[in-house]
């Protein structure tokens, strides 16, 4: 009964004072013997809720078991069966599988994510992860627009099915959000490059700096390809319409993070184009992962103070009655970035930004309560007399995304949108335009990387069936 006898252990995080001084990853490597020990806690459940909780349907109990028996080779095969890029999810996924783990009903879950990353890293070390070009080509050509996780997953699946795949990316580098949205301290970008070189070797063609509808006519895309997959992401940020919003020093999170990532990648960015938190009072609006990414970045840039605000009340320490296992637990979580300092405040709503000479210097905030509105949509009520000022030299808006940006490709192809602004599509993942499919955040709305990969796989399966009449791709 390993699950009783062994306690959950995670790899150590590097000391805060050390890690905030560089852009290296937070977590130290985990010794493999400890890892296999942890994997033994897996109970190989009759109903593996983890496997259900994972959007990819990773065969978690199976690779846990293989790892405990030192069968890393089989483990990576089983992992790759459902997940094209375990090194990405192993670093970046918030691990809904662990919330769904049966052990977490009354104990701590298995360290599934750590097992996952260990398997893939072990496999890379052993040289087992090699390019697997398809045995035969179908002669069909597929264009994938967007090179984030959804696009890359779709590309790899379709390439494996024997189609010739070209990935179009409007940015200068391939990788989408993984490339520029994720701070390096969460994932070293070498991991991305390592994977991309394999994709290249498998025969996928990458075309960065290709803006469909811009420098590449959408017409050409249609003409040269038998199918198109739109994996455009959902980067249109949610707006915060309050007074003072147009003051300088108020930025969306994503461009802010991108700038730092570019610098880390060696790009020369002049200081006046750069946004730095150095020596500033930084206020981050939004309590999610992006907010935490900003937090870690601001600390590393040398912020004077960082305050992270969110209008929601602080989540409970344990699950609420209507948030039972195996749902994603809405509980108070502390990410490594939070460990590094800064204030967190909850139930705070932004009234206005105050500035001096067009530059933000503070924000006016107010305490709010969520009205118990029964079945109706909840309303925020300001608590009288709680209005206060928070110093802010730099404000980062990490309050979520409203949907795909307005892309010329969408317009030119004539793809219909949903009310939410996402790409509309049928059960076969095809948009209103025959032969044009969608995948990832572009159709789902902003979500987790693991969903993006899953969506890419599902769309690929549908594309393959569309092209060939049948498919043996697993999807997800």
């Amino acid at each position: 009964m390993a699950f009783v006898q062994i306690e959950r252990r995670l790899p150590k995080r590097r000391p805060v004072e050390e890690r905030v001084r560089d852009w290296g990853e937070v977590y130290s490597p985990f010794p493999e013997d400890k890892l296999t020990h942890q994997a033994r806690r897996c109970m190989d459940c009759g109903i593996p809720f983890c496997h259900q909780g994972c959007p990819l349907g990773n065969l978690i109990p199976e690779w846990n078991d293989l790892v405990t028996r030192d069968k890393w080779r089989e483990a990576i095969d089983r992992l790759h069966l459902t997940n094209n890029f375990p090194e990405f999810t192993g670093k970046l996924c918030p691990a809904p599988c662990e919330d769904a783990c049966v052990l977490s009903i009354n104990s701590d879950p298995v360290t599934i994510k750590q097992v996952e990353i260990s398997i893939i890293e072990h496999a890379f070390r052993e040289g087992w992860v090699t390019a697997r070009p398809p045995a035969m080509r179908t002669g069909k050509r597929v264009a994938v627009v967007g090179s984030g996780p959804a696009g890359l997953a779709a590309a790899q699946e379709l390439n494996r099915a024997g189609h010739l795949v070209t990935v179009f990316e409007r940015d200068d580098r391939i990788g989408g959000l993984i490339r520029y949205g994720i701070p390096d301290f969460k994932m070293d970008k070498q991991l991305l490059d390592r994977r991309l070189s394999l994709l290249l070797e498998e025969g996928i063609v990458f075309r960065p700096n290709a803006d469909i509808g811009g420098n590449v006519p959408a017409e050409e895309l249609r003409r040269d390809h038998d199918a198109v997959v739109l994996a455009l992401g959902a980067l249109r940020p949610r707006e915060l319409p309050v007074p003072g919003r147009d003051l300088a020093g108020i930025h969306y999170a994503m461009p802010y993070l991108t700038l730092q990532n570019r610098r880390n990648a060696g790009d020369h960015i002049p200081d006046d184009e750069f946004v730095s938190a150095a020596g500033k009072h930084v206020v981050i609006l939004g309590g999610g992962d992006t907010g935490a990414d900003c937090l870690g970045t601001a600390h590393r840039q040398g912020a004077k103070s960082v305050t992270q605000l969110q209008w929601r009340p602080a989540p409970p320490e344990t699950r609420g009655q209507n948030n039972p296992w195996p749902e994603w637990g809405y509980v108070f979580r502390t990410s490594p970035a939070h460990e590094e300092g800064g204030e967190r405040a909850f139930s705070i709503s932004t009234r206005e930004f105050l500035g001096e000479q067009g530059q933000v210097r503070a924000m006016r905030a107010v305490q709010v309560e969520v009205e118990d509105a029964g079945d109706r949509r909840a309303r925020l009520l300001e608590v009288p007399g709680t209005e206060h000022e928070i110093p802010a030299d730099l404000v980062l808006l990490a309050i979520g995304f409203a949907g795909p940006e307005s892309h010329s490709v969408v317009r030119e192809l004539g793809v219909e949108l949903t009310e939410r602004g996402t790409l509309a599509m049928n059960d076969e993942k095809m948009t209103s335009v025959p032969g044009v499919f969608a995948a990832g955040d572009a159709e789902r709305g902003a979500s987790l990387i693991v969903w993006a990969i899953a969506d890419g796989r599902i769309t690929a399966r549908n594309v393959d069936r569309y092209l060939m009449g049948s498919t043996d791709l697993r999807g997800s």
Partner: protein
Amino acid sequence: MKSLSSDRHNHYLANDILPAAPHPTGLYDPRFEHDSCGVAFIADIKGRRTHETVADALRALENLVHRGAHGSEVNTGDGAGVLLQVPHEFFHRECAALGFALPAPGEYAVCMCFLPMDAVGIDACRQMFEQQANSLGMSVLGWRAVPTDNAAIGPSAKAGEPGMHQAFLRRPDTITEVAAFERTLYLLRRRMENAARDRDFPGHECFYVCSLSPRTVVYKGMLSADQIGAYFPDLSDPEVRSALCLVHQRFSTNTFPAWRLAHPYRMLAHNGEINTLRGNVNWMRARERQFASELFGDDIKDLLPVVDESASDSATLDNVLELLVMTGRSLPHAIMMLIPEPWTGNDGMNELQRDFYDYHSSLMEPWDGPAAVTFTDGTLIGAVLDRNGLRPSRYYVTKDDRVIFASEVGVLDIAPEQIAHKGRLEPGRMLLIDTAQGRIVDDSEVKSQVATEQPYGRWLAENRVGLADLPSAPHVPTPDHGTLLRRQQAFGLTHEEKRLLVAPMSQNGEEPIGSMGTDTPIAVLSARPQLLYNYFTQLFAQVTNPPLDAIREELVTSVATAIGPEGNLLDPQPESCRQIELKSPVLDNDELARLKHFEAPGFRTCTLPAVFDVREGPDGLTSAMESLYELADRAIEDGCTILILSDRDVDALHAPIPSLLAAAGLHHHLVRTGTRTDIGFVVESGDAREIHHYCLLFGYGATAVNPYLAFETLDEMIQDGELADLDHDTAVRQYIKAVNKGVLKVISKMGISTLQSYHGAQIFEAVGLDRSLVDRYFTGTASRIGGVGIDVIAEEVLTRHRTAYPVRPIAAPDLDPGSEYQWRRGGEYHLFNPETVFKLQHATATKQYKIFKDYTRLVDDQSRTLATIRGLLDLQYADEPVPIEEVEPVEAIFHRFMSGAMSLGSISTEAHEDLAIAMNRLGGKSNTGEGGEDPARFLRDANGDWRRSAVKQVASARFGVTSEYLVNADELQIKMAQGAKPGEGGQLPGHKVAGPVARLRYATPGVGLISPPPHHDIYSIEDLAQLIYDLKNANPRARVAVKLVAEVGVGTVAAGVSKAHADVVLISGHEGGTGAAPLTSLKHTGLPWELGLAEAQQVVVMNRLRDRIVVQTDGQLKTGRDVVIAALLGAEEYGFATAPLVVMGCIMMRVCHLNTCPVGIATQDPELRKRYAGKPEFVENFFRFIAEEIREQMALLGFCTMDEMIGRSDRLNVRPAVDHWKARGLDLSTMLEQPDVPDGVHIRRVREQYHALDKSLDNTLIELARPALERGELVRAHLPIRNVHRTVGTMLGSELTRRHGGDGLPDGTIQFKFDGSAGQSFGAWLPRGITLTLEGDANDYVGKGLSGGRIAMYPPADATFPPEENVLLGNVALYGATSGEAYFNGVCGERFAVRNSGATAVVEGTGDHGCEYMTGGRVVVLGRTGRNFAAGMSGGIAYVFDQAGTFERRCNRGMVDLETPDGQDQEAVRALVERHYEQTNSPRALRILEGWEQAWPLFVKVMPREYRKVLQDQRTESAAAISVAPAVAEVSLG
């Protein structure tokens, strides 16, 4: 008043009577009827013909009346009959009066026959008869209408009553010897029967020959034992004289008029059942083409078909016995062939006999019982018991040279001083009386004589060859790892199967077990391609015959078989045994290669390819079968004797024919062409891997199987390091061992002990296969709801093939993960899956009906689309629903709910008690399961909660089944079978028997426990009736329920159970079962409850037996809709097990058997139990929600009360299942059929069963004992007793326990002394304070469940026989006794003290299997024991006085050691022997005590090893290790 009963319809409306023997209708099929009975004969050894013999036999029959049954009408019996010698004087007189003279005895024959009632029919039959007789040179001297008096018989019997006629035929002058005359008569009868079958003459449907013989005549009919004398006035005529008289009383599961099914048949009467019938019949038919006999010449074809397939098992056995005798074998010889004693593992048997049996096994497979067969040819009369000895058979030999043989003692009053010997028939033994020689012929004499008729040993030596002796093959195929993966995919192997099935089989040598039943769709509803094997479900024995214990009673089992052609059955030659002997039917590659390369006269093998060309698509399969037949026919013509069906040729262009299809199809083809017995056949198969697969292959005709792909897979796993420490040979050997063991277990579930009998026996039901497919390839198999045809089967093969050989290879090929046992996304459907478990738990924990509706919607929708049979049904709502307020409230529904039978041990105390509390709060019923119950729970808690389980289960191990336990119940549930593993017992390792689990089971902590597969007091339906009566006595206030598992034929069993006076019948679905079970059982045995329930309802209603029983159902019920469907199909009460467990927190871990339940439910581990978070309230919420849903559905259906809804299957429609590619062919209409019965026949329970407790002797005893019961005063009385007094002392005991609790009264407060022969179950569950003394003898089950009382028995004072050599009591005494004492001055039958857990007993000799499964108590045997003593004995101590020094050989030392007893033992044994003497006055005890110094060294101590270890541990104070050892879960017995 005598009449010729032509006025039979006068007083009865047609509506009152049952229809004549029905044809298959709805789910009912007459093939599945069973019967079982009481049998007796009286023989005058010296051949003196007297009327007294006839009169006594009839009297004996009347005293067996309780072994028969009545149907819905009390005066309609199931059948009774008499066989006697032709009473010449009587017939002479009668015929003279009719105007014709009879010649001398022997020169004429009498035909007793049934004719139509109408004059035209009678004339036609007579005319036919005379014509046929004349054509054989015989003349009919005259006809006699046999007078009958039907005044006393019931309307249904009357409705089917035929005319009774006798024809007298003169022996032709050309025939001089009796045997030749009998042969001619046999030919005559066969010709007439064939004419009747061909409907050649008017009245053919009534025409039936009871007997046609110069020596014997049979009187029989659909009567009860006490009616036959009055019905046939002939039998009372003093001039009706006979030296022998065989009588029989039938207990049939059905009540349809069946006059011709009464026994005796022409040569035998039978008590029991032939389990292997289907196979025996097939093989007989297969052999027919080879029949040739000099005695019959060309006429032999008129004897065919030998077997009337519509007749009963007994009639069939009679047919074959008659054939063997008529074609020249002696009667004992023929009997020995048909019912051989176990000879393979029998060291004690002499070589000649063994050779006889060995040789004959090449000619014919055993007809496996349980059977007590009595047989006679008019001169010889005898009886034989099958190898298991499961039917009671007792006899007296009197000093005036008579033998009285019967199913019971006490059927006739014989003065004790008249008795020379009291005996019982032993397993495999024959009792034979030769009235011509005037003596009893000893078993060994008759068998030696038969065995030496031919030099069988030499014949064997010269012709039979062992597989191992064949020369090595030049080439043995080796694993081909390069192509392995593709081939595995082509045969559908999954990772899961490798990991969960194949690997454990080779690692442990046995098949793995699992828990929590199965919730995947049946094969036909599965969206995934299924192996053909999965469309078949194994049948198993329940009630009408017992499952066997293949492990503990190994001496009767065998998987050995032989391969090669059979000769002419009727003309045995030395070459008839020219066969290759196989020790195991699973061949490794080397063995198969030897077989393939062996060339010798009479042996030639030929390999046929079992593949088809994928380019032909699905049609390719059918044509491949046809060409397979052609190839086989040609091979046989060319002299091939062994066919090997091989699918090794699978490649990119060739897909395998499913092995099962190839094997069964070819088998039936060859049976049809009459060449099946010319060859043996082997299947070289890539798809066989599970136990179930092998069972099917053997069951459908394959003699041996070579699972080459399974072997290659093992090799692969060894290479991959998956099978630590195993080399290839060991892995293969262990795997084969696991298969053999598993197959043996499956066949023993059906009560079959040898693979040879199982071979071709087709003991399966097809579920979801098109009937025409089944008729064509699996002829004779039931497939009641239709299903997929061969095109879909082919498509499934092709789908797998495409995966293996994809046109466009994509990913690196890998096996499918598999998802049969553990849920996987995108894998096989599971009703309990992440979503449903989550919703159900959330809804019930937070009492949110809205979320509960989400849960039920998920379950109902998913079961509609692809999971269950009920999902294919639509409710037909009323045009005008009733307002929901008018529907009865939830509170009125709760009493219909039961929680499942889960023992304390299988689940934790917390979970067990919470369930009980919840059910008691609601007014439903919880169930103890098989594990006893803590008396502390019998009283309510301070807060008003009650932890007592209303239903107390009585299962085969009888753990903790005491008088107190039984008294504290509202319902006593006899578990005949368990959904997860019907027909099996369980095993609980020692480390799990701790704490309360051990205490409540009366077990020693730390010592393993075993549950036997059968209830040792139920080997037949009349035994069940007896147990029901016992339990009713043990607690007259409780309902008695019988739990059955759905399978084809469960309806007839249910009807039988209703006739056996159960109050409740529970039909369990196969999916249910929370307990651990071998995966084969869990997945492949039994049926969904919908089918079982529908069949039960139909058959019970048809039999007018529904009105007196409550019908319950369970097995994965999950929603209100499920309950409504169950109600409409006929169930009144509903059981839930898995769902409440989920409600309490179970997350379907399916590791209950490992004790590692992470939510503290199925575990005894204190740490894990802390994690339990369930509450009774959750369970209450669940049932409240279910009831609420039921109400909603009722409103829509227009029912205000549930009673109105029961059995209304007309309110169900079959959904057209067009949206499912495989379900399209299903036809559920038979399920919804309502029996065509007149108004007024009830379709639900409306009245009580009549238990006849008012007639019990105990009413007198209770009156007599009143001073003791009320005031604790001493009571003594002396009474006579007879065999019809059954279960004496039990009701008295229940009174005592009810008043005084489990501790009873001081020993000996009530003392009753009886004189005579006691009936069954004397002193059952006798509590402390009562002493029963019996001077005389007793039948089976003396002291069963003894609960502290005392029993003493000894022969009558004026008996002259030595008690220690005579049989005093029957089988299974002290079964499940928990405490008390018993002293028997005489010998007992089989299975003495089986599962005794605490009683002390002394006896002077035992039958086979003494002290089996014993777990506690002390037994002293002062004489010879039978074989297999102490099998499965895990506790307690036995001492055997081994005067002859032969005990060691008869003891099963699997679990015990034989020791020399020490000084402490000496004291204890001596005290017991003294007490024995004091209680019974035993002369042997006296002699032993007088010569104690000489006697003591002859005592052997039988000591269970585990038990000794625990006792030693306790003594050496290291006992601490045990008391702190975690009390661990037990599920195997749940």
